[in-house]
């Protein structure tokens, strides 16, 4: 996982609420056994026409969206399935941070484990950023993880929440599995005190 420190970029705005993971990456693209290459199918059903050509009305196809590293989307982003293909697809396309007023739990967990930063802001800030992008799609904002702030062009700085553990992992690019592996002794002690409740091998 790449460390996430600070990000300065223009944004793509999809103001829809409750964008579910079936929209982010439709299920028919989940037959892959790799994490790579999913970006071309990001938002596939909204992004491409029936014949496979680009839908010119979808924001991801607009010239000004190219190279954007921040996505701003409506409330409850990433609801639905647990597919980690959703953050993989976003990141493969180039998104490194998503701003919303709330995220679905599993999507949020999955994102943090891949270095994709979920940024929760209040409704007013959300509206303000959205109208900034509407007025001028080249508007850049800064997302700074160390200070946990979004810095707007008018100089305003808005803080966002993240748990300390995920923050450290993101800042340093650490895989959380490393932490769990270090707890092995305690895990074995737990097992000694709590015999297995099930044996799927049926022995």
């Amino acid at each position, binding site marked *: 996982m790449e460390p996430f420190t600070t990000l300065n970029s223009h944004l793509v705005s999809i103001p829809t609420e409750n964008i579910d993971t079936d929209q982010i990456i439709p299920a028919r693209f989940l037959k892959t056994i790799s994490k790579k290459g999913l970006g071309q199918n990001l938002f596939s059903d909204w992004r491409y026409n029936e014949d496979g050509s680009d839908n010119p009305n979808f924001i991801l196809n607009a010239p000004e969206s190219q190279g954007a590293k921040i996505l701003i989307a409506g409330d409850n982003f990433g609801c639905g399935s647990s597919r*980690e293909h959703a953050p993989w697809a976003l990141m493969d396309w180039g998104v490194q941070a998503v701003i919303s007023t709330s995220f679905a739990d599993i999507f949020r*967990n999955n994102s943090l484990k891949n270095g994709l930063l979920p940024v929760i802001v209040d409704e007013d800030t959300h509206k303000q950023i959205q109208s900034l992008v509407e007025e001028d799609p080249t508007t850049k904002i800064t997302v700074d993880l160390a200070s946990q702030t979004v810095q707007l062009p008018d100089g305003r700085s808005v803080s966002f929440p993240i748990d300390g553990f995920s923050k450290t992992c993101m800042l340093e690019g650490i895989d959380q*599995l490393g932490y769990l592996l270090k707890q092995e002794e305690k895990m074995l002690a737990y097992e000694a005190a709590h015999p297995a*409740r099930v044996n799927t091998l049926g022995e």
Partner: protein
Amino acid sequence: MSNQPRTTFDKIWDSHVVVEEPGSPTVLYIDLHLIHEVTSPQAFTGLREKGLRVKRPSQTVATMDHSIPTTPLHIPISDAIAAKQIATLEENCREFGIPLHGMDSPNRGIVHVIGPELGITQPGMTIVCGDSHTSTHGAFGALAFGIGTSEVEHVLATQTLLQSKPKTYAVNVNGRLSPNVAAKDIILALLARIGIGGGTGHVFEYRGEAIRALSMEERMTVCNMSIEGGARAGLVAPDDTTINYIAGRQLAPQGAAWDKAVAYWRTLASDEGATFDKEITLDASTLTPMITYGTNPGMGMGIADIIPDPMSIGDVSERNTLIKALNYMDLQPGRQLLGQPLDVVFIGSCTNSRISDLREAAALMRGRKVSENVRVMVVPGSQDVKKQAEAEGLDQIFKEAGADWREAGCSMCIAMNGDQLQPGQYAISTSNRNFEGRQGKGGRTFLASPLTAAASAVTGVVTDVRSFQ
């Protein structure tokens, strides 16, 4: 702290804490890990890259359900990419010693159907799977939740997970259900009340007279769709219904171990006076059959109600969401859905594909024909369910009615395997998600109970099962 009254959730959580350090999420022990072909390959790749092994293969079990065809088993899988994914799961299970219920297993099926069938889903356990409908297993009084592929790798490697503690949410369902109102209608009614984000960060505990009266299969239907309310998990405290269901199953505890397990399970109900962070109460006696009209499971209404008018909604983004949904569904506000012509009826999925669901659907189709205008697919949740249904002659009833009787799998719930809607088609489906394109690009889904689906299969239009003769 131990003297304070605790909820079922608190009891399970507390007894699975391996490490609790300030500033870090809890390290939680996982009793049972279910895996399937779609969300596991990248996790095994991760293990290989790091030179790690699977910590506890005997607490892990695999099956294939999402991308497999539901055509007769002797027909080879024609989708090369799906075939590769399935072969990859077989290889991974072989290499890491994980028991697999593969294509040739009589126990293969949807992962959330086979866990309970095998007797490995038990009260008081922590159960995870790279699948959001893992909440289904909460029906047994287990803490069961969906995880992503990174977390699948974590559990494979360490049998533990990092989790921050969710909050609790009591869902009281008082009173009794009326005839022809199903467990599915309880959960659709809850979702219509709280919306699809209403449970975010919480674990539901379903309580009350109506929940106690449900069978295990019905409780699974309710818990299954906890995730549709955004909840981390949903559970029902174990009781005699739970214990009787597990008794004698293939991998359930036996003999002295059984007695010990039952004694433990009996301690798991929420204590008198335990408090929840949130609470809601529904009256089961006022519920009617439910149906969804929009593009998320919270957009549901009583089957005879009228589709809401976006112009009556004050909040701008909520209004826009509904306008977008009705556009996609090509439906007019202010009208009923009753009489809406259908193209497809799908009876299946981890929500409603168990034997009692099939019995209910078959009872309505017995001696009748499905409408000429609809394609009706009945897909059992597991090969076990299929065998049982065939022993009871349910397959004959479906076939004689003109429905398609398939092999077990997820099928048109997720449309990964070629079972899918065509653009613009309308389907009534017993599954759990009506998102845009969920059952095929451009397809339009109405979620409902097996009873409503079966009655509508016969008439070819959305039908109120209460007036179905």
